């Protein structure tokens, strides 16, 4: 049975950064991912990474913007760590080879981004996530002797010892179908969010809440799960992301009357207000009949204001997306967008070192909730989150490994997981197809747990999820093979997604106020007196149990939020 000091699940930015940090501390490290690392969804992060590196910027300003962006739900101690360590991290990335674009002095150039009081977003055209991810993978190739890579291995369960400590995982080799127990002194979950719970979503097909559900199932509490970000600019056609960098470069939003409607909602920051504010504004315009397109469900994003050469150089990817997926040349005409599911602020509750409440289990990146994003994440803070807390988790786990022996992990969970997969393979073709259940889940979430929510809709979503959970037990698959059986993995992922969806809806029902990404039409005001606290969801027998956790405040008291 393989054994490692630190075993990282997920090989996006958080996972790779954790692996490199842990290896540097001298630990024996392995990184496991259900896809090849460069396919991880971090690759789709476009616009950039925030850091107060400019001489006229200060990390306190970055931290304040983040606190305000979070609608004061973010934990300020964690935000201070993230923002104060950001400049060093960005310089580290630069030193290992990220091709950040430069200003005329040859220093890192910075672009404007939503919710930021100054330009502080370093970028590589509009492929920043890809550039950083590929450079980290270059480092993994360089350090191949120090970091073992299990590429295309699908984790099915976390393994616990008799005392409840996490001591490894069970995983399936996607390519061969073989299953194995991996022992580890520490497991770091870095396997991303749960965007596929929604349809449409900007998130990749692999983003199915695996880590959130796996941690939850072994008793780790989830936090801020009701906070689901709708990105203001996703393609009407198919939900693909149009980077916020477009607005950062000067693009504007127009309604059917050709009006730059953000004047009404955020007169100071306009299109560069925080994402929850802009998405709500767009949705209001659409609901009030000022949307564009055949069914009035879109908004125009007009990038023609940006000089063409600049667009081709700095927004190259969305030029291609417009051309390839909407048939629009964005340098010549506006493109139709609308708010679409993009990010889950919530996740597995961790401390500032990535440690969860389960000993030996860490989480970092979108799978985790530190919470630095609170009610709403600022654009270009997610890459930063993954890197800062990925590194911290890697370092912390590596140090912890020095002082403890390699735990024993039994094969009990392995046998259970093999039986679980055999059961799915053996199902009669009588129930529904996996894909049908997944689609109904996504449509339900997008209808009732979106930009605007109310009790009735949330209740309905809750009921649907309950029924889908039953149906998923009997859902059948076609592929009975072992080699690259993506069908059976899809059935397991569906289970993860349903767990995440349930936690999201239960938390959204619980929070009877409007804050950040959660807007309740039946409770339209923010209510600091009762709800300036995190909602924590823990597993309790059959269903989720709701609890609370205080918000950590250091320097900034809640105030009215205006952009």
């Amino acid at each position, binding site marked *: 049975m393989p054994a490692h000091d630190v075993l990282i699940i997920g090989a996006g930015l958080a996972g790779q950064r954790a692996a490199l940090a842990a290896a540097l501390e001298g630990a024996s490290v392995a990184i496991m991912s259900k*896809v*090849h690392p*460069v*396919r*991880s969804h971090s*690759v789709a992060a476009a616009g950039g990474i925030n850091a107060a590196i400019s001489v006229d910027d200060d990390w306190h300003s970055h931290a304040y913007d983040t606190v305000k962006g979070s609608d004061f739900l973010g934990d300020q101690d964690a935000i201070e760590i993230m923002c104060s360590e950001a400049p060093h991290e960005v*310089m580290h990335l630069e*030193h*290992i*080879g990220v*091709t*950040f*674009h*430069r*200003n005329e*002095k*040859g*220093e890192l150039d910075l672009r404007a981004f939503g919710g930021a009081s100054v330009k502080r977003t370093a970028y*590589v*055209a509009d*492929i920043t996530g890809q*550039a950083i991810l*590929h*450079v980290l993978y*270059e480092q993994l*190739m*360089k350090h191949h002797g120090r970091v073992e890579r299990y*590429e295309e291995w699908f984790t099915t369960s976390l393994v616990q010892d008799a005392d409840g400590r996490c001591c490894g995982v069970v995983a399936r080799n996607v*390519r061969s179908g073989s299953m194995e127990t991996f022992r580890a002194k520490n497991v770091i979950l870095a396997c991303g969010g749960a965007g596929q719970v929604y349809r449409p979503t900007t998130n*990749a*097909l*692999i983003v199915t809440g695996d880590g959130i559900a796996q941690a939850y199932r072994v008793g780790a509490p989830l936090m801020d799960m009701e906070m689901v970000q709708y990105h203001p600019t996703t393609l009407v*056609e*198919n939900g*693909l*992301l149009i980077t916020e960098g477009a607005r950062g470069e000067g693009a504007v939003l127009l309604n059917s009357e050709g009006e730059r409607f953000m004047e009404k909602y955020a007169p100071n920051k306009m299109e560069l207000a925080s994402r929850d504010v802009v998405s709500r504004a767009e949705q209001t315009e659409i609901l009030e009949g000022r949307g564009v*397109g055949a069914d009035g469900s879109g908004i125009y994003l007009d990038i023609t204001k940006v*000089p*063409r050469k600049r*667009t*081709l*150089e700095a927004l190259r990817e969305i030029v*291609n*997306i417009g051309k*390839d*997926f*909407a*048939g629009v*040349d964005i340098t*010549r*005409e*506006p493109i139709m967008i609308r708010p679409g599911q993009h990010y889950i602020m919530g996740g597995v509750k961790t401390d500032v070192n990535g440690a969860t409440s389960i000993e030996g289990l860490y989480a970092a990146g979108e799978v985790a909730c530190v919470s630095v994003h609170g009610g709403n994440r600022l654009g270009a803070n997610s890459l930063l989150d993954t890197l800062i807390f990925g590194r911290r988790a890697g370092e912390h786990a590596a140090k912890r490994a020095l002082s403890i022996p390699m735990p024993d992990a039994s094969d009990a969970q392995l046998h259970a997981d093999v039986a679980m997969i055999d059961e799915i393979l053996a199902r009669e073709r009588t129930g529904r197809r996996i894909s*049908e259940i997944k689609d109904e889940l996504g449509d339900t979430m997008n209808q009732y747990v979106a930009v605007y929510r109310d009790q009735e809709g949330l209740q309905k979503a809750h009921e649907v999820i309950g029924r889908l959970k039953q149906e998923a037990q009997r859902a059948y*698959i*076609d*592929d009975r093979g072992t*080699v*690259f059986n993506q*069908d059976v993995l*899809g059935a397991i992922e569906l289970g993860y997604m349903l767990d995440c969806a349930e936690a999201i809806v239960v938390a959204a029902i619980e929070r009877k106020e409007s804050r950040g990404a959660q807007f309740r039409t039946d409770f339209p005001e923010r209510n600091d007196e009762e709800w300036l606290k995190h909602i924590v969801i823990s597993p309790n027998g059959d269903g989720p149990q709701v609890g609370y956790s205080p918000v950590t405040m250091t320097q900034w008291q809640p105030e009215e939020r205006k952009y």
Partner: protein
Amino acid sequence: MADTHRPPEEFTLRMLRYDPESGEAPYWDEHTITLEPHRSVLEGILQARARFDGSIGIRCSCRAAICGSCGVRINGEPGLACHTHLDHARDSATDGVIEIEPMGNMPVIKDLIVDMDAVHWKKVQRVTPWLIAKQPVPEREYLASHESMVDITQTMACIQCGACVSDCLAMEVDPGFIGPAALAKAYRFVGDPRDAEHDARLRDLAHDPQGIYDCTHCFKCVEACPKDVNPMGQIMRLRRIAGSDFKIVDKNNGERHEAAFTTLVRDHGLLWEAELLPRSYGGNSRWGKFSPRAGKELISSLPAILKALARGKVTAMGALKPHKIPKRDLESVRSIYDRIEGREERYELNLYVTGHDEEEPTAAAGAGSAGSAPTTTSTEGSPG
């Protein structure tokens, strides 16, 4: 606005399936799906998988041509399934049925899934694919020009999908060729002003018989690349930098071959085929053929020379005398050389970074009504 609300249509997909556990040979499998014509082939495959057969194997994730998972061949041409419209694919099909196969030059694992580790990633690992940073490392960022960073962003934009590897003709003949994707990755470091080992990298790739001079200049990778990385262009840039800037005379005669080629065309207006090989081996002058090195190589090339003579590609007279072209034409050819060589800096074609702020002649018609006017965004560019 482009008309984006087109009604769904039926499309038939014919996929090459392979089940390694069955012991059977690959077979064709057809499904008819219903989608709007501008949807992608990947969405078509996913619909077939969701509705009819969950066992169809294809790697896919982002749906937006950024993760690089879904490289396949569509109607025989390599590309991303998520980056190809159904209607375009149908138009390029021979019988109206969209044919989808796994990529080439890599072993098939199952259906449309190939073993990229065995070929692609091994080659990437071969080019020392990480920055060897100049020392000392500065406290803040390395100062670098905007242009240099934008320049290497073109190769940074490679998503490692393998489409170029799939149809590399040189790799088909010589599987050991480092290949377009990995060499483009190599340029990413050679073009990076922060890297300390440009010379060693170039020497390594020039002297490796399966390195930069193994490319046969066929343009397949340029066509295949869904991200405009232009791998062959990067290989040519590596050659120019190795030969012109670092004066690396490689043991494969690659540098001399290029020098001989350009000299012969400059001197005679047309290539003098019979002089090309001797000079490539012996040195770039009329005395090249008398070099002992050339003699040795000529003997080993004798079968090729005899074949060329037998097929009339070279005549005995032609071997003795160069082609003749009118003096005016020869002067025109030389003026091209003078102009290009007279530049202070070598122009490098980089499709990623170019584009002018120029207005098109029809711009007065107004942006809003430009609807269906075809515009090129990727090919207009800096002078090459």
